[in-house]
């Protein structure tokens, strides 16, 4: 097996002429959970869409490559892609209300989905899986229809469907963001449990650093279409390097009940097109040079990358 299950190399993505994501580099090892965090519009969902490679979503790969298990999957034909989606790459979207048919029972929809990927639906297997995931009343669940379920339960059924096909890599795009805190915690624990049992890799997209800190091994922080910091979760959270990462952490209300510190302004929409630093207009430590300095993700410490270390206080 290749060392990296998924490898993203110099990836630049666009919608039409408009660049969304530039020069993203990272990799996911087998059995690893990688979180990509960032605020809305930073390009984190676009990244997932590109890995899925579903053409009509409009994401175009301008440059770079996506390598899954040693095989370049950047430009696959529709048929080739059908072979790997579901079975090698699983996907849990944010809005599972929209991805299930609301008025057909789960077992019919499970069966259909598996048929599309040339697999057989085994009811017993599904129930076994649900039991392992501590779903309440697994025998009855499959006969239910999505509208009868709560948002949390529906989300878990979507995870169940993705898991049944035993993919090696699971992509979860804000999979817990619509849930209440109690069901969010449950779903996260289930995902982590699956990782431990099946040795999966999960690429987890979230805007919630609290969620990331509970599940991830590695954390990437994105801002305006660029990865500004990447590394082991403990290193990034305990000793953040990039000014944006620090500002982001300061804005999260913590256990100490202190008022969080906000950040004026908003990210540029065309940030991916800029030559200089995209965070410069909002940055406390900006200098004239920031406007022209080209983006580059440097390895500041072993296994800890950042594109800027201005104003960093070493702990």
């Amino acid at each position: 097996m290749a060392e990296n299950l998924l490898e993203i190399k110099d990836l630049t993505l666009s919608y039409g002429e408009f660049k969304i994501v530039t020069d993203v580099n990272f990799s996911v090892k087998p059995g690893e959970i990688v979180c990509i965090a960032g605020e809305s519009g930073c390009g984190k969902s676009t990244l997932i869409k590109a890995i899925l490679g579903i053409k009509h979503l409009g994401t175009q790969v301008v440059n770079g490559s996506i390598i899954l298990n040693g095989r370049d999957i950047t430009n696959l034909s529709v048929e080739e892609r059908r072979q790997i989606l579901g079975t090698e790459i699983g996907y849990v979207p944010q809005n599972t209300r929209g991805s299930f048919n609301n008025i057909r029972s789960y077992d019919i929809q499970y069966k259909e989905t598996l048929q599309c990927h040339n697999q057989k639906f085994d009811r017993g297997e599904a129930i076994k899986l649900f039991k392992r995931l501590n779903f309440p009343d697994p025998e009855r669940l499959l006969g239910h229809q999505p509208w009868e379920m709560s948002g949390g339960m529906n989300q878990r059924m979507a995870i169940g469907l993705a898991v049944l096909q035993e993919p090696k890599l699971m992509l979860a795009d804000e999979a817990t963001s619509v849930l209440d805190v109690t069901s969010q915690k449950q779903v996260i624990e289930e995902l982590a449990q699956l990782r431990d049992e099946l040795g999966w890799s999960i690429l987890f997209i979230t805007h919630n650093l609290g969620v990331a800190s509970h599940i991830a091994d590695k954390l990437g922080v994105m801002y305006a279409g660029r990865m500004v910091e990447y590394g082991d979760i403990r290193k990034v959270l305990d000793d953040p390097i990039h000014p944006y990462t620090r500002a982001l952490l300061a804005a999260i209300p913590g256990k100490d009940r202190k008022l969080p510190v906000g950040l004026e302004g908003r990210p540029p929409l065309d940030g991916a097109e800029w030559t200089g630093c995209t965070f410069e207009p909002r940055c406390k430590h900006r200098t004239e040079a920031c406007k022209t300095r080209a983006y580059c993700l440097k390895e500041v410490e072993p296994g800890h990358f950042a594109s800027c270390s201005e104003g960093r206080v070493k702990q």
Partner: protein
Amino acid sequence: MSEAPLLEVRNVAKAYGKKNKRKEVLTDINFTLNEGEVLGIIGESGCGKSVLLNLISCLEPVSDGQLFFKGQEYTGKKPKDVCRWFQVIFQDSEAAFDPKMTIRQSMKENLKLLASDASDADRRIDEMVGMMGLASELADRYPRQLSGGQVQRMAIARGLVTSPNMLLCDEITSALDVSAQAMILQYLYELRRQRGLTMIFVSHDLAVCSTFCDRIAIMQGGRIVEIGTPEQIMDHPQHDYTKLLLDAVLYVK
């Protein structure tokens, strides 16, 4: 200042549907709120926290119980009778502004309706917009030309421009990024400090509420199961549900 609390909610209940299909969504809600106090209401989706705000602001009639404002009962009044006292701010403020009006025009409508003297409207709008940390030129833009956080701050400014006694905030930061959320919390905190603003702050995020509320009420299934200061709630939770909720909050480790 009168001795009576600014707001009293006494044995309030709300039910929807008729006869045998009747479903109670709020049961036996009791609390008082003094002037200058900020009450956070926490609960998961569907627990009735938004309905409670609708009842207090008379957007919906109560099924049972009484509401008092400064000791005077106002149960059964129309929204236009109470909007001088309460201004409500919702999660999606872009939808709450008229898309064809500039922010300033929308705010003037409020003033025309509620202020006795609207001659110095522009000055009052500029002052309020300034208090929310925004440039007054931004008020001449249309809602879609502002970011989510800016629109939300404009909505708060619009609520406050008519000097209501109380602000009712319904999940106002839930749709925003954390950095924009933190900005709003800072400005609300500042408003509290300077003007002694009374507020009910409905949210599903316990961490957000604990940063600036005087008291927090925990709701579950249409009831207030626990109410207390952030210290009492977070450090010495009494009810099982509160404990469950506290356990589920994922802080950044």
